[in-house]
């Protein structure tokens, strides 16, 4: 109850502040299992992507988030577990040597859709996109049936720049591209380059 109410308030606020306009360019919002992968420049990224999905898809789309940031007890823990139903991963490889992607693989095996940021961490530099880490490749290889949908989130880094508390009410656009899959005998690097390029192609051309 409290979680649903919080979700409603958060998605409404995100849409009100940013006008979040979803452009379904390469696919339509269908209830199939998907991995939405997007550029990451702000803590608000997954909230906005999540908010811009239709209600029916949203309940099955789980954001993949860094455990180091989100498992502080209190509001963060409540938000990520109860509200967003997130999948938490350890971004630093632990000494135990376990596969850090395991919780994500489990979620996909259950049939959940995911919101995933293949850059691994927020991009705070001037380049539009940082090199992808290998997580996206391993997920694509383990579950080839899942549609990989690139989503470019435009302008959110201007709405909430790093270290600033007050959001600016600028308009954000989310461009959903064409679903892609890992091709037979495609190398890891070739696949990551192709995915990265597919995402960059959705970015608005800037003067």
């Amino acid at each position: 109850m409290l979680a649903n109410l919080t979700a409603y308030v958060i998605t409404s606020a995100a849409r009100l502040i940013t006008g979040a306009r979803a452009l379904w360019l390469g696919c339509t919002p269908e209830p199939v299992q998907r991995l939405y992968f997007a550029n990451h420049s702000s803590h608000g990224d997954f909230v906005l992507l999540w908010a811009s999905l239709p209600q029916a898809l949203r309940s099955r789309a789980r954001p993949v988030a860094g455990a180091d940031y989100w498992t502080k007890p209190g509001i963060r823990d409540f938000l990520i577990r109860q509200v967003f139903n997130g999948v938490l991963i350890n971004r630093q490889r632990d000494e135990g040597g376990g596969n850090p992607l395991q919780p994500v693989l489990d979620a996909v095996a259950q049939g959940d859709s995911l919101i995933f940021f293949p850059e691994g961490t927020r991009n705070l530099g001037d380049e539009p996109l940082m090199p992808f880490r290998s997580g996206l490749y391993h997920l694509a290889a383990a579950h080839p049936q899942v549609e990989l949908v690139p989503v470019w989130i435009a302008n959110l880094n201007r709405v909430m720049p790093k270290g600033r508390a007050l959001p600016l009410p600028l308009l954000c656009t989310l461009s959903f591209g064409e679903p892609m899959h890992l091709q037979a005998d495609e190398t890891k690097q070739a696949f990551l380059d192709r995915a990265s390029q597919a995402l960059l192609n959705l970015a608005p051309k800037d003067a």
Partner: protein
Amino acid sequence: MHDNTLSLFAGIGALLLLASVIGRLLKWRAGPGPHAVIDNLNARINAWWVMVLVIGIAFLFGKYGVIVLFYGVSFYALREFMTLTPTRRSDYPALVAAFYVALPVQYVLIAMDWYGMFSIFIPVYLFLLLPILASFGGDTTRFLERASKVQWGLMIAVYCVSSVPALMTLDIPGYEGRNLLLIAWLILVVQISDVLQYVCGKLFGKHKVAPNLSPSKTVEGLAGGVALATLIGALLCWITPFNFWQAALMALAVNAMGFFGGLVMSAIKRDRGVKDWGHMIEGHGGMLDRMDSVCFAAPVFFHFVRYWWA
């Protein structure tokens, strides 16, 4: 509400009804299936109903209703402008000042009737404050360009738009209590000029007037639209403090400013590679697409009225 206001809104309602009927007839004659121009025309007419309704509700609340309405218009216009003009991370404090200080303060100053401050607050104080805030970021890349963009956005979206509700602050001898009608007259004349330029252009347009800036504007549309809108403005002199010829000259002035405003705002859009400022008004584009002519006409109109009548 003044009797004249009611008859004015009744007239606008009748006009829109006529437009809706014509739009439906055109659609019916064109047959089933999509028809870009007619569908856009009908979307525009429908949006006009909503816009007239919103303005009508604001008028019911008088001065403060109009101030709140244009506060909203300014907010949406500023947001569209800043979204489309790239700024850098160190412009954040200047943008916060624009959205959360300049915008509300300007409208509070108008509500307070403080002409000496609202007429210079953005052009003087913010003009100096914004680059100071931007300089704290220590980022010199395209500094002048960035500072200019924020200032320009504020001038167009806040300062110029706020000239419309500022008409409420004028004391015009013999016109007491009727300033709302002056606002209605200005918006009606400028917007009907846009509409008539569009209609005349679609019907008779041949020669492009500024092909690089705005490919849809034609000499025929411009001449026909401005002439007809000026005539309408003059015929509506009974709701203004002007006589027939004064109203005609004022209408000509605001229509000319409105036309050039459309050209300037179009040049910015072309440079940024977009067709519309936004998407909030179905068929019209964004708030700035609908307000571009008002932005340029309103400040000139305000100062003309203030100089000669108030």
